[in-house]
């Protein structure tokens, strides 16, 4: 049996609100009043609640991570291991970051200290220059002194280079002598070996000859 108010939009709206638990008190009262006297609507409301229960059965597939290629399933143990590694890495990273921050702060303090000292030195030097009378940089005496110092440095450098060269030559001579001795020893050893081989062969030939002579004597 159909309800005579089946086409009533207001009642439909109220019933939908009721079905989803969004009806206010007035709408709820209207629906309940109607349901109390209308078996068709009671049956329909019960059926729609059943439909809603059924709809809950359709669940979404588990979303694949966008970076996982299709068809490849990452095992759980691998994911767990990755998470563990990630956590470890994050801890290390955090520790490293804190340490880096401390180091940076210390370096900044040191740089500020050096900057301060540098400024003080510059100021001291500037003050000293202001006190000293200005000397001409191209005066003959200054130039002569510079020439003498340069000559002296050059001579010292040449002497040092000469000494190094002598030492290097002496080293080469020693090394060549040692090599010569080693080569001679090797030659002597080789000759001795050859002599030994030759002696053995000679003895064996003599032995064979002895057998031959003995054999021929027996035939006769």
């Amino acid at each position, binding site marked *: 049996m159909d309800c005579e108010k089946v086409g009533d939009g207001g009642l*439909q709206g109220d019933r939908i609100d009721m079905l989803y638990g969004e009806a206010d008190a007035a709408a709820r009262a209207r629906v309940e009043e109607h349901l109390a006297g209308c078996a068709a609507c009671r049956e329909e409301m019960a059926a729609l609640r059943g439909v809603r229960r*059924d709809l809950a059965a359709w669940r979404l*597939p588990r979303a694949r991570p966008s970076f996982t290629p299709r068809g490849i399933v990452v095992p759980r143990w691998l994911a767990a291991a990755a998470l563990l590694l990630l956590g470890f890495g994050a801890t290390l990273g955090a520790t490293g970051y804190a340490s880096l921050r401390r180091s940076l702060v210390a370096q900044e303090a040191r740089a500020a200290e050096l900057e301060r000292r540098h400024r003080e030195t510059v100021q001291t030097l500037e003050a000293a220059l202001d006190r000293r009378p200005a000397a001409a940089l191209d005066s003959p005496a200054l130039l002569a002194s510079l020439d003498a110092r340069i000559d002296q440095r050059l001579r010292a450098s040449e002497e040092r280079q000469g000494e190094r060269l002598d030492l290097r030559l002496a080293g080469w001579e020693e090394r060549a002598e040692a090599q010569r001795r080693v080569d001679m020893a090797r030659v002597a050893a080789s000759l001795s070996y050859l002599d030994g081989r030759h002696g053995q062969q000679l003895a064996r030939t003599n032995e064979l000859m002895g057998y031959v002579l003995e054999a021929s004597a027996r035939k006769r």
Partner: protein
Amino acid sequence: MGRSDEELVEACQAGDASAFDVLVARWEDRIRGAAFRFLGSEEEARDVAQEAFLKAYRALSGFKREARFSSWLYQIATNLCRDRLRRRKTRATVSLEALEEAGPVMVEMRPGAHERLLERDLAQAVRRAIQALPEEQREVVILKEYQELTFLEIAQALDVPVSTVKTRLYRGLGQLRLRLERDGVRGAAPLPAPAP
């Protein structure tokens, strides 16, 4: 306590692009879920979600904040799904082939193989019934039942009055009831009276 959608939108409009990342993280799963139920394809759902966020980002400067950000986002995603369904050249229903291609249906796992089979059959019947609904009813059913939007949010997302949303939902539920009863699904029929 995280920032609200509205605060994030405001930050984004002021030039803080990272605020949009938060919005994406907050809404991506739900938008993709809705698109999956509209289209029946996981790949397409992912594409739609990405496209929806891209469109939203480009249009964010013109977003007036008269509606909620989520409603606006659902509106964009729903329109994208409609475009895709039209391109499939179907007439209000999705072909059974497309449904089968949608992959296995996931159901809540319960102890007992028989129960699981029943649940899987039920889930497939529900999916077929929803996909067979006219588009305007299907949209409302999905947004209400699975996305749990309020009637006002659905009205904003679909750009129709709230009363229209309720009418479509009422008719959609009625259609589902008929179809599920025809398929012999248990819950759609009134529960049998207990045995004396």
